[in-house]
Each structure stands twice: as structure tokens, then as C-alpha cells.
């Protein structure tokens, strides 16, 4: 193939394009933080998962230790079955408890895992028993209103 001056310029163009893609992949999408680490899967049943989605974080003490792999509806217990993949270097006791939390007031939901006291640790395929559902704002408000209505209206009696 004959060489020409264009070689340099086209090569430069390709390099600039590659640099731009690399910038997008590393700086904006943070490819490096994708963990290719080994994980073990555990499942848990929740009464209500709220707005939890696949790939949501599983955090312990605020640090991401795993991801939500799958969410299905269990038609036997009428609960949501959540499959989580937790990185192998993070080990938790078998009686750890799970909570669905929200980051900030309007942020996305994640699962918080709190370590229990038992000696045995979680292994692949384990089922976590102690779960706490997502806080659904509507339920909270209706409970608040219900309590308000049930209270004796002492303010008016005083007057």
C-alpha cells in the first residue's frame, strides 16, 4: 500500500476518536468501577419493594457491597423475591437484616444490609429472613391521617 501524508492525519483523527470514546467510557460511565469480582447470590422476600430496580446497589454502612440481580413476584407467598449478588470479600452473618432505603428524599432506592450476630456466614443460595419493606409514602400519610382522626379533638374542647 502506498504511503501518503493523509496517513498521519487520518491516524490522528482515529486517535482523537479513540480518546473521546475512552473519555466517555472512563470519565462519564466509570467503566473501571464495574466490578468483575466474584459474587455469591442470596435471596430475600420483601412484602413491598417500592421502587427498587434491577442493578440497584446493596449497601452496608453506606458502602456498596453488591447489586440487585433480579426481582420476581413469588405467587405462593405474594411477596417480592429479590436476588442479590454480593461480592465474595464481603461476608455477612446468616441473621443479617435487610432494609429497603432511599438515598435522599427523592433519590433512588437501594438495599441496606445490617450485619447480625450469628457465627455462620451467608453462602451462595442462602435466604435472608429478616427483611423490612420500602416505606411507601402513601401508606405513611394515610396512617398519619388516620391517627389524627382517631385523636380526641382536645384543642376545640379547651376553648
Amino acid at each position, binding site marked *: 500500500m502506498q504511503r*501518503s501524508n493523509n496517513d498521519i492525519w*487520518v491516524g490522528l483523527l482515529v486517535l482523537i*476518536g479513540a480518546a473521546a470514546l475512552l473519555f*466517555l467510557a472512563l*470519565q*462519564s460511565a466509570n*467503566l473501571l468501577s464495574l466490578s468483575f469480582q466474584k459474587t455469591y447470590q442470596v435471596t430475600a422476600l420483601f412484602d413491598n419493594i417500592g421502587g427498587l430496580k434491577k442493578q440497584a446497589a446493596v449497601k452496608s454502612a453506606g458502602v456498596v457491597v453488591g447489586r440487585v440481580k433480579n426481582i420476581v413476584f413469588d405467587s405462593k407467598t405474594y411477596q417480592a423475591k429479590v436476588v442479590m449478588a454480593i461480592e465474595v470479600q464481603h461476608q455477612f452473618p446468616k441473621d443479617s437484616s435487610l432494609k429497603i432505603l432511599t438515598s435522599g428524599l427523592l433519590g433512588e432506592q437501594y438495599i441496606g444490609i445490617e450485619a447480625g450476630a450469628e457465627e455462620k456466614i451467608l453462602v451462595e443460595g442462602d435466604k435472608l429472613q429478616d427483611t423490612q419493606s420500602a416505606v411507601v409514602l402513601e401508606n405513611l400519610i394515610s396512617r398519619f391521617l388516620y391517627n389524627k382522626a382517631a385523636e380526641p379533638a382536645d384543642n376545640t374542647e379547651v376553648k
Partner: protein
Amino acid sequence: MIVRGLAHLGWTLRVVVADIGHAARLFWQLLCCAPSCLRRFGLVRDQMHFLGNYSLALISVSGLFVGFVLGLQGYYTLQRYGSASALGLLVALSLVRELGPVVSALLFAGRAGTSLTAEIGLMKAGEQLSAMEMMAIDPVRRILAPRFWAGVLVMPILSAVFSAVGILGGWVVGVLMIGVDSGSFWGQMQSGVDVWRDVGNGVVKSLVFGTTVSFVALRQGFEAQPTPEGVARATTRTVVLASLSVLALDFVLTALMFTI
């Protein structure tokens, strides 16, 4: 009267279908020329230089300004909801998913597509293409295919540059000028943008748009009336058709890629 109307309708339909068939045949021919283009990559390289390097300045300056505007406008909207920290995410997602591929394809159609059409149309008007055929050189293989493949290869590069420069522009306005926290600008972006779902699909989009724009431009030039008015009309049609098909295809691709 009715019979004549029906005949006219039938004839128009026949012409349209034949047109589509002819376009599909040309497209297939161009695809089949890939091996010969690889063998004589020098031809593709020269076209990449012409289409890509000369568009680079336009693309990066446009990307910078689009990023500026996104940063400014996004900040005003987000700040009403007290979530100005999500500015980075807004800028990056809209650039990587939509604006990068689409706007750079539109600019590419205007900057490079027209020149392709005019070049090929004038070659046709000057009977250079016929002369090549007389010498048993296939003009599709020698002239059209290198330009087509160069356009397909160059488009993702330009679109990636557009998005990257745009994000930097959004950073300049958002972080340096307005004062959004730099950590949350990048952090929210990194937690919200996915490499394969967002960046990867953006590259796929730009490949599709590169194919569309260069094919439309080449076909319009190849089919142009060999007169000055014919070339002028073909150039206009290139911009109109290429822009419309890029926008329509973008809707289809977005619907396919980003539905949850």
C-alpha cells in the same frame, strides 16, 4: 377519468417501488464492496481524511456550544427542584444518547454529505463515470464504495468527539462558571451513565446514521440529472432526505434501545 387516475396511481406506485428496489440493490452492492475497500484501504483513507478531518473542527466547536447550552439550560431547570447536582448526569445522558449521534449526523450531512453528492453528480455530469465504465472500471467499486465506507467509519469518531467535547462544555459552564460542585457533577454522571447501555448504544446509533447519511448522499449524486440544475437539486435533496431519515431513525432506534 377514473381509469386514468387509477393508471396514474399505479404508475406512481410502480415508480416508487422500483426506486426502493434500485436503492436496495445499490446498498447491497456497496456492502459487497467491503473486501475490495479493505484491500485498497488507501482510497478509504483519503476519503476519511476528506470527510473526517475537515469536519472535526465544525463538530467539536458545535459540541462545545451544545454543551454550554445544556449546562446553562439544565442548571436553570434542575435548580428549581433543588437538584442542580444532577447536572452532570443530565448533560452526559442527553449528549451520549441523543444529541451526540443526531446533531453530529445532521452536521455531517450538511458538511460532508452535500460535498459527496456534488462531487459524484459533477463526475456524472462530466461523464467521468461513463468513461470509467468504458474502461471496465466499476464506478460503484472505485468511486462510491470508498466514500461510503469512509462515511460509515468516520461517523462514530465524530459523534464520540461531539459528546466528549459537549460534556467538557457542560462542565465548563456548570462547574467553572455557575459553581455546581465538581464532585457531584462527575459522581452523579458516573453512577447514572452505563458503558454499554448508553455509550455503546450511542456508538451503534452513530454507525447507523453514518450509513444512512453517506448512502443517501451517494445515491442522490449517482442518480442526479447530469445538468447543473440536476446537481443542485440532488444536493438539496441530500440534506433534506438525510436529515429527515436521521431524525426518523433516531426515534425508531431510541424506542428499540431505551425502553425498559
